[in-house]
C-alpha cells in the first residue's frame, strides 16, 4: 500500500512542479517585462517597449456615415444627412468573456431629430467546452449574410428590398441568448447557431408577443474552400415567432455566396457572387399568406481600391403575396484606405401596387452617395 502511495506521489510531483513552474515562469516573465519597461524609460533602449496597450480601456471607434440622396418621386429631390454615427466599445471582460457595445445615433426620418440607441450590446463567452460559444444581450442575429454585418461594411448603400420588406431596415436585431456550436466536422466548416429572443419591438412582421411566444432562430453555416482562391458558403436559416395578429410567422432563408480571391494578389482582385432567398409563411386572423423575396449581388473589384457592384432585388410583402417590388442597382466604391470609402449607387425601382410611401409612383430612380469614415480600432467583420 505504502509502495503505491509513494509511486503516486512520485508521479504527481513532477507534474505539479511543472504546472507550478509554468505559473511561476509566466509570473516571472511578466515581472521581467515590467522591470525591463522601467529600465527602458530611463535609458533609450529599444529592447522592451510596450507591445500591448497598457490600459484597461476598451477599443473605441467612431464610424461616420454621411449620405446625400437624389430621388425623383419626391417633392424635395435632394437630401443630405449624417445618416449614422456608430460608437463602438469592445474589450475582454475577464478570462470568461468579452463584451461588444455599439451605440448608434441616427436621424429619425419623420421627426428629423437625432436619436440614439444601443444597436448591439452583448457578452460572448471565451471558454465554454465542446466548441460552444454563448452570446447574451442585444445583438444582430445570424440570418443570412448581410444581417450580422453593420451596414457601413456592405458594398451597397441601401438594404435590399426583400430584406427591408421582411425584416426591416435594421433587420433581425433582438435581445436574448444565442448559442453557437462548431460542429466536429474536419472536412469543411459547419457552425450551428440557435437563438431564443424576446421578439423584436420594430419589425415588419414579427412582434414582441404579449403571450408566452418567443422568437426562435436557427442558422446552419456551411463553408468550403473550393480551391486556394475560391470559396463557397451555403447557409440555412429558420425563424419562427409571433406576428401582428398574435399568430405565427415562419420564415425560411437560404444564402449562397461564392468568392474568388487569388491569394497572391488578394488586395487587387476579387469577385463575390452573393444571394439570399426568403420564404415566409404567416397565419393571420382570417388569412394565410406565403410570400417570397430575394436579392442577387455581384461585386467585382476592378482595381486595387475600386469596387463595382450590381444588385437585383425582387420581393413580396410578408403580408401580401400580390405585392411585387423589383429593383436593379449599381454601386461604384472607392476604398481610399481601410478607414475611409466613398460609394455612389444608382437604383431603379418598380412596384405593381404604388402607395403613399412611393408618392404613388410605380417607378422611380434614386442616386445615393455615401461617405464612410472611421477613427479608432473597429474590429474586423466576418469573411
Amino acid at each position, binding site marked *: 500500500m505504502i509502495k503505491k502511495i509513494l509511486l503516486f506521489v512520485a508521479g504527481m510531483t513532477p507534474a505539479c512542479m511543472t504546472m507550478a513552474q509554468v505559473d511561476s515562469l*509566466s509570473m516571472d516573465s511578466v515581472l521581467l517585462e515590467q522591470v525591463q519597461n522601467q529600465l527602458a524609460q530611463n535609458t533609450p533602449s529599444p529592447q522592451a517597449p510596450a507591445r500591448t496597450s497598457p490600459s484597461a480601456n476598451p477599443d473605441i471607434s467612431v464610424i461616420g456615415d454621411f449620405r446625400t440622396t437624389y430621388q425623383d418621386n419626391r417633392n424635395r429631390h435632394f437630401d443630405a444627412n449624417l445618416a449614422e454615427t456608430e460608437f463602438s466599445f469592445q474589450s475582454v471582460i475577464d478570462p470568461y468573456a468579452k463584451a461588444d457595445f455599439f451605440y448608434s445615433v441616427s436621424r429619425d426620418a419623420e421627426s428629423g431629430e437625432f436619436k440614439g440607441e444601443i444597436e448591439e450590446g452583448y457578452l460572448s463567452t471565451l471558454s465554454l467546452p465542446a466548441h460552444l460559444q454563448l452570446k447574451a444581450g442585444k445583438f444582430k442575429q445570424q440570418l443570412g449574410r448581410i444581417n450580422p454585418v453593420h451596414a457601413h461594411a456592405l458594398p451597397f448603400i441601401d438594404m435590399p428590398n426583400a430584406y427591408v420588406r421582411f425584416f426591416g431596415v435594421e433587420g433581425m436585431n433582438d435581445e436574448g441568448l444565442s448559442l453557437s456550436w462548431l460542429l466536429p466536422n474536419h472536412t469543411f466548416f459547419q457552425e450551428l447557431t440557435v437563438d431564443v429572443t424576446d421578439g423584436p419591438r420594430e419589425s415588419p412582421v414579427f412582434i414582441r408577443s404579449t403571450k408566452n411566444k418567443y422568437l426562435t432562430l436557427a442558422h446552419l453555416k456551411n463553408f468550403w474552400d473550393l480551391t486556394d482562391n475560391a470559396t463557397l458558403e451555403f447557409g440555412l436559416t429558420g425563424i419562427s415567432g409571433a406576428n401582428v395578429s398574435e399568430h405565427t410567422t415562419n420564415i425560411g432563408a437560404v444564402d449562397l455566396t461564392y468568392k474568388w480571391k487569388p491569394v497572391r494578389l488578394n488586395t487587387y482582385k476579387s469577385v463575390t457572387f452573393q444571394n439570399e432567398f426568403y420564404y415566409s409563411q404567416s397565419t393571420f386572423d382570417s388569412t394565410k399568406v406565403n410570400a417570397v423575396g430575394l436579392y442577387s449581388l455581384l461585386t467585382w473589384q476592378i482595381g486595387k481600391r475600386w469596387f463595382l457592384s450590381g444588385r437585383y432585388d425582387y420581393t413580396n410583402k410578408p403580408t401580401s403575396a400580390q405585392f411585387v417590388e423589383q429593383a436593379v442597382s449599381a454601386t461604384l466604391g472607392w476604398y481610399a484606405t481601410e478607414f475611409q470609402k466613398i460609394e455612389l449607387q444608382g437604383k431603379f425601382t418598380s412596384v405593381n401596387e404604388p402607395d403613399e410611401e412611393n408618392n404613388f409612383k410605380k417607378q422611380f430612380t434614386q442616386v445615393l452617395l455615401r461617405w464612410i469614415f472611421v477613427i479608432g480600432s473597429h474590429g474586423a467583420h466576418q469573411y
Partner: protein
Amino acid sequence: MKNKKNIILIAFTLLMQNVFAGTIHVVTTTQDLKSIAELIGGNKVDVFGIATGYQNPHFVDPKPSYIIKLSGADLFVTVGLDLETGWSPSLLNSSRNPKIQKGSPGYVDASLGVALQQVPSSINRGEGDIHIYGNPHYWLDPLNGKQIARNICDGLERVDPADKAFFEANLKTFNETLDQKMKGWSAQMARFKGTKVIAYHNEWCYFENRFGLQIVDFLEPKPGIPPTPAQLVKIIGEVKSNGIKVIISSPYFTTSSSDVVAHQTGAKVLTLATSTGAFDTVRNYFDVFDYNINQLITVLK
C-alpha cells in the same frame, strides 16, 4: 486484482506527467513561423501555417476553414506587433479554444525579446498604415530568427514539458546552423555594404540593417498608399542621382509602378522573398536569405 490496481495507478500517474501520446498541433500565422516551429519541434509537431508565403500578411482573409485548424490547436504562434490585427483576433475569437487565447500557455508571441525598429513616438494615421508597436517585419533579420525560435521553444515546453530536452537540442542545432549560414551571407554581402536601394513597401528595415543596405525611399508615398505619379517622379530623380541599381518589390505587389521607374532609369526590379514559401525554391526559413542574397548579389555586381 493487485496487478490491475497497479496498472491503473501507473497509467494515471503517467497521464499526470502530461505525456503527449500524440502530436502537438501547432498553428502559425506565417510560413516562417511554421518553418521554425518544424525545425524546433521535429517529429513531435504537426504545423499549419495560415498565410501563404506569397501573400500580404497584413491582409489575409479570415476564412472559416482556418477556424477548424485553430479549434484543434495546442499551440498558436503569431508574429505580433499588430501585423495580423486585421484578421487573427477574429479567428482566435471564433476558435472556441481556450488553450490558445492571448495569455494562455498555448499562445506564443514570437516578437517577445526582439529588438524593434521604427517604434513611433506618436501615432497618427495621417502618416499612413503605421504599426504602433514598431515595424513588425522583424523575421527578415536572420539573427532575430534565434529569438523567434526561443519563443517557440518556450511555447512547446509549456505545452509539452516532458520533451524539453528534445526541443532544447533542436534549438541548439537551429542556432548553430543559423550562425554558420550567417557567416556565409555576411561574406557574400560584405562588398555591397552601404549600397543604396529603393523598396516598394517599408518592410525591409531589419534586412537592410543586418546586411548593410541603405533604403533611400519607397514607392509608396506613405505606407499602404499606392504609388502616385508625383512619388514616381521623385523616385526616378533619386535613382538617377544616387546611381541606384535595384528596386525591391514583394510577391504580393504588382510591379507596374516599379517597372515605370526601371524603364526610365535602367534600375532592375527584384521581387524578393518576404517569407518562406514565397517561391517554390524557398522551402524553409534559411532559404529566404539564400534566395534574397543570391538575387541581390547577381544584380549588384
